[in-house]
């Protein structure tokens, strides 16, 4: 793998800022889209029907799937935000904490577990 020279400069290139902000925003937006029911589209696997936005399951047509729509919503939103982050001046980009890339998913874990509280039951 190609490596850069050793440096102690805590700076991010435009691409680095794009990838960092994309990862952070994708995680946050994905959880928001899940909890607030904000899929870009709804897929009905029983009939291969696709509805724009959130659509409840139709009678006699099987379940509705939102996961694909959450991925699309989170991807679109985070692409826009990370694109803006890449345009920031070098001085500001360097102040984005790199640790957010792994701290955010760890912090979101209990939120996700809570969002699935419907399943954590003993019967």
């Amino acid at each position, binding site marked *: *793998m190609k490596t*850069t020279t050793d440096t102690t400069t805590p700076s991010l290139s435009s691409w680095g800022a794009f990838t960092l902000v994309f*990862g952070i925003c994708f995680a946050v937006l994905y959880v928001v889209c899940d909890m607030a029911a904000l899929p870009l589209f709804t897929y009905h696997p029983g009939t291969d029907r696709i509805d724009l936005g959130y659509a409840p399951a139709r009678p006699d047509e099987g379940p509705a799937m939102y*996961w694909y729509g959450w991925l699309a919503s989170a991807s679109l939103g985070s692409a826009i935000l990370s694109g803006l982050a890449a345009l920031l001046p070098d001085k500001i980009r360097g102040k984005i904490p790199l640790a957010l890339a*792994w701290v955010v998913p*760890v912090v979101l874990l209990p939120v996700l577990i809570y969002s*699935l509280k419907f399943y*954590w039951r003993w019967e």
Partner: protein
Amino acid sequence: MDFLFDYISVNTFWTILFIVHALLAVALLGALTHQAAAVLTPPRTEDTGGFVRRFRSVSAPSYTAVVCLLWVLAFIFGGWIYAKYRIYVRIPIEQEGFYKTLGAFELKEHLSSIGLGLLPFYWYLWKNVGNTTYASARKWLTLVLAAICWYSFLSGHIVNNVRGFGL
């Protein structure tokens, strides 16, 4: 795709897709675990031979591209069979009342998606492996991805044990 069904049954087709997904996951698990071990406990110079030393003595950066590729491929295959899972696997498991199993699998779906979004930065950090200011983020992000991979692998395995594709 319909021409395939002249040769194999629909059930066989989906089973093949699932097995490919599972094999990709095994390869990803191995690659990420090697890399995580290498960054978590780098081999010491005074270490002699042995399985543990050899396991963590890999060239961690060389795993990056293959980890990204395997994650994406496993995700695509997982997303492909997910529609069938929703109807033919999840509904029977719901009817049996195995809600915690389903919840564990839903969590896998969320975590593997978040992991997918983190791959570009993971790749960036490892591409710039010579930059010491990235070392901590690189180490912890790798460990988080490895943890997600292990969780996803095990929860998927449990669901398969509970139901599989019911063929």
